[in-house]
């Protein structure tokens, strides 16, 4: 598939908005320090709900980050996306005085839930007050393309752009699409995923999946790969990354090259009841092939870590099948943020790139006892220093989405 002439695609900027940290370094420090972003939901009175915890971003004042004109027209998720985009572009040196302009720059983001809090308010206005109360902004603040469109407009990015929806695999699929777009000739593509649905209706709808933990202890509600695993906690936020043609980054003297996107693949599970094998292992193997790496070329895996025994077992089996029993360190730092829907894979990719930079694997906080049968070398208790050259990031979405991305540390030659 790839040839020697295929452009190499690197990451030159990172912006993170997560429940335990706003900004790349704040988030990274919080992961390494085990700071928990999961707490009791405070956006509304959730006393009637079976679950009451969420990974909420607590200290984001939208007006400190965005112009006043954008506030009435944006959902909370779009505000996070716009702020994270600003940080990522500034990090990459592609902010207001960017040397790349116009068609040089594209946008490919993912959201699983759209501007849900915003649209809930408009549904409420329509049905409690009447059509004339519905905002003009509802026509776009809700839809799944809104983050891509608003980021494009705010930053003058006119290159090929898209919004990808693949449930919780979306953050990685957006990155795969960004790489494809850069390879086809766009110099840089802003990518990643951001989500939020913590309004009363959005939160209830997340519970409807039947996969959310009913535990009340914020440190024991989302325990990926733990014997006590009993569901996950919904969170909000995500990450925005700048993917760029490696030659372009070098030519303009980009301040950072966090790593190269060396492999990507997506597969889908067979229809329920078909008896065919699930697709996760295949996604991992295809991504490794794409990166031209053997399993022993992967130094750490950022796993999906659903936090349910059946799904955890399935992922552990796929990892053991590819890497062998305890063949590679595995971690799920999202135990500190909750699952961020499409934001989760993107945040994990940011974590993986920072792990490559600092040669340290953030741990899976709160998980303490991993079933022996999983055959996993799960990094628990504290971060682990290690020589890291390539990392695999895995994300799964409900109903069968499997995505895998391989990132490799920049060569210092």
């Amino acid at each position, binding site marked *: 598939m790839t040839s020697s002439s295929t452009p190499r695609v690197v990451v030159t900027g990172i912006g993170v908005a997560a429940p335990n940290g706003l900004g790349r370094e704040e988030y990274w420090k919080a992961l390494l320090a085990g700071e928990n972003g999961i707490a009791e939901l405070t956006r509304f009175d959730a006393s009637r709900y079976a679950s009451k915890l969420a990974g909420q971003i607590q200290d984001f004042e939208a007006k400190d980050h965005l112009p006043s004109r954008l506030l009435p027209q944006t959902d909370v998720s779009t505000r996070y996306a716009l702020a994270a985009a600003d940080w990522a572009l500034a990090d990459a040196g592609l902010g207001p005085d960017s040397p790349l302009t116009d068609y040089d720059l594209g946008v490919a983001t993912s959201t699983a839930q759209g501007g849900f809090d915003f649209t809930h308010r408009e549904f409420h206005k329509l049905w409690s007050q009447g059509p004339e109360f519905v905002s003009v902004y509802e026509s776009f603040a809700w839809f799944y393309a809104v983050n891509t469109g608003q980021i494009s407009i705010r930053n003058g990015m006119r290159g090929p752009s898209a919004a*990808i929806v693949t449930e919780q695999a979306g953050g990685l699929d957006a990155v795969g699409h960004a790489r*494809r777009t850069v390879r086809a000739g766009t110099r840089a593509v802003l990518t990643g995923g951001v989500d939020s649905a913590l309004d009363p209706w959005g939160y209830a709808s997340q519970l409807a999946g039947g996969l959310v933990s009913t535990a009340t202890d914020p440190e024991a509600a989302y325990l990926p790969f733990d014997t006590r695993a009993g569901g996950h906690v919904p969170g909000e936020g995500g990450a925005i990354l700048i993917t760029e043609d490696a030659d372009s980054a070098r030519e303009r003297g980009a301040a950072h090259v966090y790593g190269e996107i060396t492999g990507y693949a997506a597969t889908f599970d067979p229809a329920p009841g078909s008896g065919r094998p699930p697709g996760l292992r*295949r996604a991992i193997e295809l991504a490794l092939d794409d990166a031209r790496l053997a399993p022993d070329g992967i130094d750490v895996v950022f796993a999906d870590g659903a936090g349910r025994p059946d799904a955890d077992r399935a992922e552990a089996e796929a990892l053991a099948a590819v890497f062998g029993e305890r063949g590679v360190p595995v971690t799920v730092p999202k135990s500190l943020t909750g699952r961020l829907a499409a934001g989760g894979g993107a945040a994990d990719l940011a974590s993986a790139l920072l792990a490559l930079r600092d040669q340290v694997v953030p741990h899976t906080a709160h998980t303490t006892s991993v079933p022996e049968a999983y055959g996993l070398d799960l990094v628990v208790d504290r971060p682990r220093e290690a020589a890291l050259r390539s990392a695999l990031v895995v994300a799964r979405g409900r109903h069968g989405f499997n995505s895998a991305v391989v990132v490799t540390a920049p060569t210092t030659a």
Partner: protein
Amino acid sequence: MTRRVVITGIGVRAPGGSGTKEFWSLLSEGRTATREISFFDASPFRSRVAGEVDFDPAAEGLTPQQIRRMDRATQFAVACTREALADSGLERDRLDPYRTAVTLGSAVASATSLENEYLVMSDSGKDWLVDPSHLSPYMFDYLSPGVMPAEVAWEAGAEGPVSMVSDGCTSGLDAVGHAVSLIREGSADVVLAGATDTPVTPIVVACFDAIKATTPRNDDAAHASRPFDSSRNGFVLAEGSAMFVLEEYEAAKARGARIYAEVGGYATRCNAYHMTGLKKDGREMAEAIRAALNEARLDPTAVDYVNAHGSGTKQNDRHETAAFKRSLGSHAYDVPVSSIKSMVGHSLGAIGSVEIAASLLAIEHGVVPPTANLHNPDPECDLDYVPLTAREQRVDTVLTVGSGFGGFQSAMVLHRPEVAA
């Protein structure tokens, strides 16, 4: 060597009839299928006309369980997938699951089910704090609509890359463009690609009312969609879906498939200008058209027919006309340009795929569908918009374009495989 991509199967559900055949009859006869909204009491709304599809999921062969769990838009997509697969002659059992992918476009996804469930949970909208005891088990899937392409994947037995492309009103073009990339890069050999949207529901009608993008011409529903006419005053909201079978060309040829067209080129750009507004100059759409023609290695003069976005808003019609002149030069004045939205309305994210279907059928039948309801063109729209009646002519190459909220501008070139250099 670049892998070439062709379309070998079509399925359509659009206003005015079910299936590709009825769809083409409507277009080629220049009939319109817009009408007064019948799905709910639209009297409180500013725009009360729509392109509704008479769709009976049970008659389509969907099981009661499928009907219960699937949003209406998903039902459309599954029905179209069946039709497209049957049309292609590819049997599901002969598809390699690992080499089969799905790209489904949709702008507002499961809007119909979201609204229905909202009313149940909020005491008909009275309560801000919804009642979790009235929570449908399917509500998660209406919030997070990954299930829509998943249902298509299950229908086709696809286990390759599966995704939804949601770029507003260019979703239907972009989903097929995405599918072309998957085949060219080698990630799949066959893709079920297309789009679906069923937005004729109060919340969507209300939000387009608010920005006055839809027409208030409620007294003449059948003639309410008037792209390029000086009397046009907004688009007509509609439902629709179209799905296609896309294949690698050599494989399609080897199995003796009927090939509707090759996807020669596709490109998308953003205007980075405004979430809903368009600049008059059409610069970014022109750039997308140039890039798509360039990818297809065709000169503007090769284009025999332009299937326009033609939504029937003043700003679109002028923007688009400028974009055609900018990208096609003097050929813009020679080539027939038409908008099928004049007949089937604007089904948001679906329409790009519905328009691809129209483009393929124009090539197949040698007929350019007309722009209905076009009696007095806007003086600023001075191209050949094929008013009122279809035109018989050989069509080898079609340019189809779309424009969407968020600033998306997309273009696709479809042509007979033998046109390629």
